[in-house]
């Protein structure tokens, strides 16, 4: 029979095994969030299409028509959407998983399970939205009769990158939010600004060369560039030094995110 030892600072050994044991809960929480999300709405799931579509139209008008940013021969809506797909995934995942612990505080204070399950399942929920809005991408490509390049075989890699970045940042925000509710206000702010700071509405090549490396500290720069490269094809080269910086940033965020989350996790029930 298994023996469990509860001691100050000693949850580590059990933790990863428990995480595996609770894998079904993980799916259940994601399933719950999906079920609940569009209850009592009229158009339901269509919201996951309407929102990105309208944002895309606005960005196309602002950056493509008014600011006349270079499009490199690509239909501007497609260019914008390549950036918006990963950006929307990242931003919803960040805000959803950031709020997830606080929103599930009744669970946290009454039941044991590895807390990592909660923000992780929020990322999954956002990923489902991502897949739904990917349908718009396909629609746009058919409309403009734009053939994707072979690079899109590498797309899953960039999706993984976006996933890792969202999860890492989500962990940080979730853990900080438990103690500092200030993040409730910070997160929407970051999301709002990030849309303009990240190369969502334009190519990252418009950034002057001397600033590009610095610009790539934003992990979404690498991800968005990767998406564009994969979907739009070879002429839109990835800026490799910047890309490596982005990857490094993403890995660092994930590792420190897990570390900080695990460190503060044991006090969640007392603080929340």
């Amino acid at each position, binding site marked *: 029979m298994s023996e469990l030892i509860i001691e100050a600072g000693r949850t580590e050994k059990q933790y990863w095994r428990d995480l595996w044991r609770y894998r079904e809960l993980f799916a259940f929480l994601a399933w*719950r969030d999906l079920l*609940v999300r569009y209850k009592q709405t009229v158009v339901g799931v269509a919201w996951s299409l309407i929102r990105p579509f309208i944002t895309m139209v606005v960005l196309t008008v602002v950056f493509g028509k008014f600011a006349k940013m270079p499009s490199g021969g690509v239909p501007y809506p497609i260019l914008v959407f390549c950036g918006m797909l990963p950006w929307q995934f990242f931003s919803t995942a960040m805000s959803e998983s950031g709020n997830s612990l606080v929103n599930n505080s*009744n669970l946290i204070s*009454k*039941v*044991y399970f590895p807390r990592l399950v909660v923000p992780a399942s929020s990322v999954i929920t956002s990923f489902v939205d991502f897949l739904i809005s990917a349908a718009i991408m396909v629609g746009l490509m058919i409309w403009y009769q734009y053939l994707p390049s072979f690079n899109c075989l590498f797309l899953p890699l960039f999706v993984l990158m976006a996933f890792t970045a969202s999860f890492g940042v989500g962990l940080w925000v979730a853990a900080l939010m438990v103690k500092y509710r200030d993040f409730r206000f910070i997160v929407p702010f970051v999301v709002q600004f990030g849309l303009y700071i990240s190369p969502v509405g334009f190519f990252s090549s418009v950034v002057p060369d001397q600033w590009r490396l610095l610009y790539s500290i934003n992990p979404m720069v690498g991800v968005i560039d990767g998406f564009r490269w994969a979907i739009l094809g070879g002429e839109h080269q990835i800026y490799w030094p910047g890309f490596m910086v982005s990857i490094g940033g993403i890995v660092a965020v994930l590792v420190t995110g897990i570390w900080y989350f695990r460190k503060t996790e044991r006090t969640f029930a007392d603080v929340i």
Partner: protein
Amino acid sequence: MNPAISVENLSKRYIIGHQRDARDGLRHALEDAFRNPFKWLLNRKKQITATREEFWALKQVSFTINDGDVVGVIGRNGAGKSTLLKVLSRITEPTEGRVRIKGRVASLLEVGTGFHQELTGRENIFLNGAILGMTKAEIKRKFDEIVAFSEIEKFLDTPVKRYSSGMYVRLAFAVAAHLEPEILIVDEVLAVGDAQFQKKCLGKMKNVATEGRTVLFVSHNMAAVSSLCGTAVWLKDGKLNSMGPTRQIMDKYLTSSSEAEKPVLETSEIPRIGDFGRRIKIEKLEWLTELPIQNGERLRTRIHFQALQDVEDVSVGLGFSTLEGVRLLSYDTDFQDGYRPSLKKGTRWTAEMSISSLPLAPGIYSIDIGSRSGDSFGLDYLPNVCQMEISIGKNTPSSIVRDGAGVRLTSEWKWSSETPESEFQAVS
């Protein structure tokens, strides 16, 4: 016997005090760090202890529970019962000490944790089951049983937000009742639901107990504890007071007087709701008999009050309620003779009550005091002004303690046999 749970020197510290909120905000954390980084780094630890107050919810608690034991945890509010269960169910970490647990644990600190209002009964069964640690296959297997136990077949596909509170609780308990752990940890969950349902839950718990599983059970319901548990653990102020056979511990617990029960309770400063306390203000409640008050014995109290305005037809009274707030007994000054004096502004009064034999069963009750004018106009009202323990009196029959009946009044009974005397003799 194998120990299923062994607790060694378990302590849990909480940081309390109003200071905490101010110092914990992000602004302060950043401010401190930026203003003087060096000082901040050096003094971080020191500052924390200086501005925060410690509170030990559990202090050096040790005990062992054997495999198959059903143990009740008793103690007053704030004695550390819930903290103990939280530590044992791994919701919060102990500050010191260690616990060893052998076997699969399920803990039930609340009925319906994780229920989602928007989801249907069916969906919630799956969700709640998963949260409590069941696998999908397990839930599927027990699904019909759970539904049958909850008696909500008809509403399975209705969102639970449309359920009555009774249905909600039934469904929630039904899921929890079908957990099959080796060790079950249960907090005050029976306090909810109607009497009939409580009985059903208790029955289910008894089944669990007789199946040889280890159960740790916290309740204010002494009747439930004594009927379920063979052993009891008594926590007092975060420390283990004693542990042993339930009867023995419970007798000690119920007869122990407590510092919380003062012979005179000042009530002037207690905030009132609305206009209560503006015209008549109850200032003190005085217990004239020795505490703890005893079942079946004489009880005398005195209520001190002041008329802040001229008031007509005044009466005052005292009530005993269960901890859930159900009034069991009321004593009013005007009940027998309808005597309701009119009082002049600024005068002080006392009303003294005497009962020859207190009919409430031993247990903990909440005390309400109040005053009104005429039949219904409330002048002052202090619900749950204190909690009082009624302990076992020298004439208390042990049957009362065991079934936890609320009120026992003397009554006259006449026996007569309906069987002819000849047959009666044959039978005996």
